[in-house]
């Protein structure tokens, strides 16, 4: 069976640019969730988010005509490709899979608002051409001269993880030896307003797994991984951050926003991923949880974890407690976090967790990172509409 290694990482997160910066922030348990600066939040229940730092974004890409999402994506993708040491020849046959939701909507919204208020056509209306999720893949495919299959995957909040699972399939099926897979989302008004309307946002920084949790915090990020056929990687002397052992994707087919009450689809995603990885639940030591901080998600995910691992059967943490829910990027940055957890032997904490919900009988690494040598870990991503993806990584 084809072995798949992770040979490059790239991240732009609310901590700033670079996978190293991202990891340092996580290990420190730092929380960059702050009042939103990108747009007006007057009168909303929650007015905070984990934005990428303004000075960092300003320095990312030379062209101001690019959408914020494109700039985040380009920086993370360039970093991953450089980190993996890929040559133009490698890139010419590499596949690209981008998990995306918001596209260039932030700029599209600004333009729409302007036109609605002025009643005139905006001079910035070119922004409308790039509002779709596929705009990022178009930009990356062109800028990086990627010649393999190109795809934009939307699977709600599991988009980033789905892009990694589908990318791995291309390697396993022998279509390409290399895939640049990941996810990106810049903050948008629509996303912020929508989750506010659903009353799913905590007015304070989110507290996954805490008894008093009141919802999630939104964030923005881009993260890309270079996935590579292990033989191909070894032959060219590439880096080996760890192995993607398996993936599982399922659908609840239950409700358009709520998860199945007993986590049926989540359990199946984890079980399928374990089967694909040919490992047992007992061998998994750590789960990087979806852990959004909403009552319903955390309760249901805990039910599913109990069914798969047994009470307390695995260490669990949610980095959304620090960088927020970065939407289509979430599954990808959490995959990066999981890979780095294995590599460094340190588990990132669940910040703001002081009063563990008794319905969540797991050690959730409250507040402070913990050193722990781990061989196998799992990363969960569960989206709206019951779209689930689980990834299994090995050191």
């Amino acid at each position: 069976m084809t072995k798949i290694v992770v040979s490059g990482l790239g991240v732009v997160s609310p901590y700033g640019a670079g996978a190293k910066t991202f990891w340092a922030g996580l290990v420190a348990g730092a929380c960059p969730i702050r009042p939103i600066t990108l747009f007006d939040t007057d009168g909303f229940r929650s007015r905070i988010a984990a934005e990428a730092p303004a000075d960092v974004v300003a320095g990312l890409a030379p062209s101001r005509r690019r959408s914020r999402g494109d700039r985040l994506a380009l920086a993370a993708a360039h970093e991953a490709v450089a980190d993996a040491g890929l040559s133009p020849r490698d890139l010419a046959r590499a596949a690209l899979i981008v998990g995306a939701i918001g596209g260039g909507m932030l700029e599209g919204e600004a333009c729409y608002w302007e036109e609605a208020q002025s009643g005139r056509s905006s001079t910035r209306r070119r922004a409308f051409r790039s509002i779709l999720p596929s705009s990022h893949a178009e930009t990356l495919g062109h800028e990086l001269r990627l010649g393999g299959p190109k795809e934009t995957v939307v699977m709600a909040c599991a988009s980033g993880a789905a892009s990694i699972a589908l990318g791995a399939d291309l390697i396993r099926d022998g279509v390409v030896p290399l895939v640049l897979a990941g996810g990106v989302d810049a903050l948008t008004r629509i996303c912020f307003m929508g989750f506010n309307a659903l009353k799913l946002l905590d007015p304070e920084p989110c507290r996954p797994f805490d008894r008093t949790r009141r919802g999630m915090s939104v964030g923005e990020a881009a993260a890309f991984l270079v996935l590579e056929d292990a033989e191909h990687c070894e032959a060219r002397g590439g880096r080996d951050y760890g192995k993607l052992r398996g993936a599982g994707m399922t659908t609840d087919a239950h409700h358009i926003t709520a998860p199945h009450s007993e986590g049926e689809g989540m359990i199946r995603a984890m079980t399928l991923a374990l089967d694909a990885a040919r490992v047992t639940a007992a061998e998994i030591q750590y789960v990087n949880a979806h852990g959004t901080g909403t009552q319903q998600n955390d309760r249901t995910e805990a039910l599913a974890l109990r069914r798969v691992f047994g009470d307390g059967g695995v260490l669990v943490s949610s980095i959304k407690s620090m960088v927020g829910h970065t939407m289509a990027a979430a599954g990808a940055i959490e995959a990066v976090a999981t890979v780095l957890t294995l590599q460094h032997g340190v588990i990132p904490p669940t910040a703001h967790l002081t009063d563990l919900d008794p319905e969540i009988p797991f050690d959730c690494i409250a507040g402070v990172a913990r050193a722990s040598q781990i061989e196998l870990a799992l990363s969960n991503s569960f989206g709206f509409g019951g779209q689930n993806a689980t990834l299994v990584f090995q050191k």
Partner: protein
Amino acid sequence: MTQKEVLDDLKAILVERLMFDPSRVAEVTSETRLPAGVEGSLGLDSLDFLELSITIEHRFGIVIDGETQDLTETFLSLDSLSRFVLARMGVA
């Protein structure tokens, strides 16, 4: 406001915001059960109730706090809901 007026407004919300067919709403009595999963109910789920409560807050100028209170009984039927609205408006 009378209970009849509140009921009429609630029925209008069912059509305008919850997208029910007017003929379906015409059959609804004040005793018709609202939540899904109950025999003969209108079949509303959590998302419907959220839409309903936001619209009610705006239309009647009241605050509905579903986070700290259990509103299951309130949203059982149009009768219970209209009485809740009147009470919150201080009309009861």
